[in-house]
């Protein structure tokens, strides 16, 4: 079954959707959309570095994404204009990554694959990495779920309940770096934030609890991956963007359905 590149592509997409769902909810609740972007964009530099030094792209992307996520976390709460700081970091990271990649000869075609994803080229080893990373993120976020919710709700409430919101933030930071690293091959760095935000936001009008929102986001993300892969084959469109297009369509449907439910 895994011999079929189409099946592998769908499984890869579903894996990313499952990991992105619970994390994406926190990204939405905590208004960290730009945070996701900055981390994802930094991964381009990681890709360039790993190609230059012949290391696994997954490891390089993970390392640089983690460094960026930690940097952003450290800057957060220092009273800087977070919005603009994140904008500077996010776009600088992307530009530096692209310039660094241009020094490497013969990777220009590869680069497109990392920017927009190359899900149809996912091999068995990639699948292991993607599902391993997804399992890690789901386990981590699931384990800290209650504490993460408390820290998201209000830092002082968390402290009073014996929860350290800084430590919980670190859980999200680490998970984000892992999701970025495993999602590069599937949707590419430019659209990773879309896989975090769109399914979660699409699920929002349909649910009444945080848990249902995470499950809803996972279902919507998985449907997007399955339909997106098939659509891209049918219409000969780039796969990563096709997946995101389906998610966007589901977002519109979710909001329409939510509006009807409230009547």
């Amino acid at each position, binding site marked *: 079954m895994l011999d079929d590149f189409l099946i592998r592509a769908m499984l890869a997409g579903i894996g990313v959707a499952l990991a992105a769902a619970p994390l994406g909810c926190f990204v*939405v609740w905590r208004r960290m959309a730009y945070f996701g972007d900055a981390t994802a964009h930094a991964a381009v530099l990681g890709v360039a570095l790993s190609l230059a030094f012949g290391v696994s792209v997954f490891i390089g992307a993970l390392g640089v994404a983690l460094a960026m996520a930690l940097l952003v976390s450290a800057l957060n709460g220092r009273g800087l204009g977070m919005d603009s700081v994140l904008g500077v970091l996010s776009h600088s990271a992307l530009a530096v990554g692209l310039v660094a990649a241009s020094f490497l000869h013969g990777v220009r075609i590869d680069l497109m694959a990392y920017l927009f994803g190359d899900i149809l080229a996912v091999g068995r080893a990639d699948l292991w990495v993607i599902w391993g990373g997804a399992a890690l993120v789901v386990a981590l976020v699931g384990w800290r779920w209650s504490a993460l919710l*408390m820290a998201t709700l209000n830092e*002082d409430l968390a402290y009073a*309940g014996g929860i350290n919101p800084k430590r919980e933030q670190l859980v999200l930071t680490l998970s984000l770096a892992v999701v970025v690293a495993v999602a590069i091959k599937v949707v590419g760095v430019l659209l990773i934030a879309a896989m975090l935000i769109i399914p979660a936001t699409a699920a929002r009008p349909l649910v009444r*609890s945080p848990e249902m929102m995470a499950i809803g986001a996972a279902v919507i993300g998985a449907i997007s991956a399955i339909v997106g892969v098939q659509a891209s084959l049918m219409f000969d469109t780039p796969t990563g963007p096709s997946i995101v297009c389906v998610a966007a369509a589901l977002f519109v449907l979710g909001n329409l359905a939510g509006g009807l439910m409230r009547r």
Partner: protein
Amino acid sequence: MPRMPKQRGMNALVETRNMSIRIGGHTALKGVDFSISKGEIVTIIGPNGSGKTTLLRAIIGALKPSSGEVKRQANLSIGYVPQKLHIDPTLPLSVERFLGLPKRRSAETATAALAKAGVQGIQKRPMQRLSGGQFQRVMLARALLEEPQLLILDEPTTGLDQPGAAQFYHQIEEIRRDLGCAVLMVSHELHVVMSASDRVICLNGHVCCHGTPEVVASAPEYRELFGRGTHGALALYRHVHDHDHSECDHEGVDHAG
């Protein structure tokens, strides 16, 4: 500077010693000695920006002292009701689910806590659709579910009208009696505070004065901050209090300065 009596230190739930707190290069609190013991109701009063919330945040461990120390009793359970709680509209959260944070609670336990906090029949409602008064009471209910040894309330009656506020404080006294927990609160409503507290701490970047409501109300530091009119309001409120809080006409005690 006035110091807290030493003997309180023996069974204090929380104690700060010569604690100073700097926030962004500015000294918010300086040399604060504070303690609260089992079953006490202590109220912090002070003008805006005097460090009241800062003191509460230091006590729950959200702020680290830049000098001095905070000592909490081992395994101290704290119920905290913040002044404001903004819940992002993207977070679907019913009253029931909110009460189950961080630990899940049975429906019966949640209902009982809501009743104790003075509100009923709103378990399924989204938190974002509660009125100000309901929201405060739900936050109180959640704090009670922690079975607190120390209940901390930061201006809990913000957004309540006078009868509502008086009723709320009455409920706090009942809760203290039932649970035997200590209560530490910040309040602006001097007349209510003066009648409902065992001890009052007047804060203005440091502890200006402290003691029983009567001692504080007659302290010169207090009068400098709040004016002389308060003493009259205190007397008037004591009178109103004698009639029990229920449905009293609070006319004439709506200002304290």
